[in-house]
């Protein structure tokens, strides 16, 4: 793995805040002594990591942990509130607009819901073919042959070009979504829960397709998922998030063999596995806290079985605990 030498994407101290501003009524009420405040959600809090050329990085977390927000920022759909995103060493956010467009084109996103992410009024040829023509990757004369090529690559029958998205099953629709992303010749795919909505047997087909494409086209992936089985299967490295912060970064091998952070451990223990029979479930207690009102100190401390006084007041920083391994937990200090 070429990881530290040539990162394709580097996230530096990325923060994203969503602010719900006051409307006119609440502002008026505040004038006469009301006490409304702006609601701020810190969706992503000072996150840094890199994605190497040709690497598959899994980004794992539960709902509200900010994993999709990161995906959207990397894809250029959202702008971070603070921090920098570098693509092949170029700072995306400070590039002039036109240049930025062409750089962003190299990162494409595949969405979770193949029903919502395809325009029902467009034919497959337009869904896949619109972008490459607009970006002058192919001329409209050559489009037909180009479509055949892309569709074959994704396991779609090119004869179905004139059909509408609703005429396809969920798995085929997801293939259309992948073909649409590949049609602009990206180097980097961001898959946001791309197989979560599919049946198991179809999910396996799509995962195999991802692996084939990686081999054939040398693609780099950011695989956003809550499904540790999927992530373990495909990823080289895994990034675990909890409530907007990174808690652990490690190679897939290390992470699944010897998880360090208590949250990672809990996640791994609680994933139902096919070879775990009639087990006694012993879940971590408590809810995932709301990102509007996160706990003090380490965000995981109210649910953590090892939490100490220090965890309640001081947020742990992400520290190196081994070669290429990072974890944000005070316990690592105690054990040396």
């Amino acid at each position: 793995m070429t990881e530290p030498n040539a990162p394709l994407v580097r996230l530096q101290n990325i923060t994203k805040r969503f602010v719900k501003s006051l409307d006119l009524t609440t502002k008026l009420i505040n004038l006469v002594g009301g006490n409304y405040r702006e609601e701020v959600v810190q969706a992503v809090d000072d996150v840094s990591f890199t994605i190497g050329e040709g690497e598959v990085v899994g980004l794992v977390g539960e709902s509200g942990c900010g994993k999709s927000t990161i995906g959207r920022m990397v894809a250029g759909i959202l702008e971070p509130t603070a921090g920098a995103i570098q693509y092949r060493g170029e700072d995306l956010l400070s590039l002039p607009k036109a240049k930025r467009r062409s750089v962003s084109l190299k990162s494409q996103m595949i969405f979770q819901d193949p029903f919502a992410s395809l325009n029902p009024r467009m034919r497959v040829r337009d869904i896949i073919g619109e972008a490459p023509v607009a970006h002058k990757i192919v001329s409209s004369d050559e489009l037909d042959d180009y479509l055949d090529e892309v569709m074959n690559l994704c396991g779609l029958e090119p004869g179905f070009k004139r059909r509408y998205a609703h005429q396809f099953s969920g798995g085929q629709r997801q293939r259309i979504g992948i073909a649409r992303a590949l049609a602009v010749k990206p180097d980097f795919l961001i898959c946001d829960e791309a197989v979560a909505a599919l049946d198991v047997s179809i999910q396996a087909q799509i995962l195999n397709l991802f692996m084939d494409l990686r081999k054939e086209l040398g693609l780099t992936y950011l695989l956003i998922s809550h499904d540790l089985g999927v992530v373990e299967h495909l990823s080289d490295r895994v990034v675990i998030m909890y409530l907007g912060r990174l808690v652990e970064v490690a190679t897939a091998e290390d992470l699944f063999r010897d998880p360090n952070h208590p949250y990672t451990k809990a996640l791994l223990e609680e994933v139902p596995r096919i070879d775990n029979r009639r087990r006694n479930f012993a879940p971590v207690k408590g809810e995932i806290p709301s990102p509007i009102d996160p706990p003090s100190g380490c965000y995981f401390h109210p649910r953590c079985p090892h939490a100490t006084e220090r965890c309640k007041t001081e947020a742990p920083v992400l520290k190196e605990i081994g070669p290429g391994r990072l974890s944000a937990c005070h316990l690592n200090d105690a054990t040396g």
Partner: protein
Amino acid sequence: MAATLSVENLNTTFFTKAGEVKAVDGVSFEVDKGKILGLVGESGSGKTVTGFSILGLVDPPGRIVNGRILFGGEDLVQLSEESMRHIRGKRISTVFQDPMMTLNPVLRIDTQMIEALLAHEKMTGDAARQRARDALGQVGIPSPDERLKAYPHQFSGGMRQRVAIAIALLHRPELIIADEPTTALDVTIQAQILFEVQALCRESNTAMIWITHDLSVVAGLADDICVMYAGRLVETGTVDGVLDNPLHPYTRGLIGSVPSRNTRGRPLNQIPGMTPSMLSLPKGCAFRTRCAVADGACEEQPEITAPIDGRGVRCFHPHMDNPQ
């Protein structure tokens, strides 16, 4: 001792404009007291319609055309809607995938729970409130007194599902039908719910049908498994039997499709093709067109047989080279 629920040759058909859809086709199984049966299948396999048929909730154009559903000595198929109302929600209750659909968004939790109690039992309002409170405590909701006065939107997804389970438990039912109840939840929350459900079934000896597409959830929870494909049972048996030694090519394919520790980086064992439309099933074995071992014999419909003790498989060529 008779099983809590015994389904015999159930056939539920939808008579649509496009043709007849045999959503459930000759399904038979039993659930015993205190046991959890995992009903596994992909979308469109008929697992949900099976659950709805037991509850008597199949709406036109669908109809149970054949079969018996024996519950406490009665055949639910023959019961009038009025008698069914006395059973549904009281002796058989249900938990659905989306708790927002089960709960009325404009009513407080206590209103909904007390209503469910008074619908089946004569009791004072105070006694009902007490029962509702206890049920919330039972499923692990902290400070149940205050939470009773909350509205569904004030709960998180996991908490809402707990409320739905608490409502299902109110009348101490003999059977609970749970249709993908943890699919929409996060991993740690799913584990909490599975933990509660498992404990509750063991304590109160309730029988349970757990409908899901996720083999790994069933592996940790259920005692027995029924695998459905295109409206038919293709394989039945104990959890260990089915998962360690799957006989039907479809079950083998499903297990092979689950990414796990052993398959890291290698291609998954995918099942080719896709689930056929229920309107145009292949003749004979419905899995024939996606199956690696299918041959001419499979153009006939195979019957479900029992090649090994307690196991049933609907296949002419069951996988037999692993006699353990």
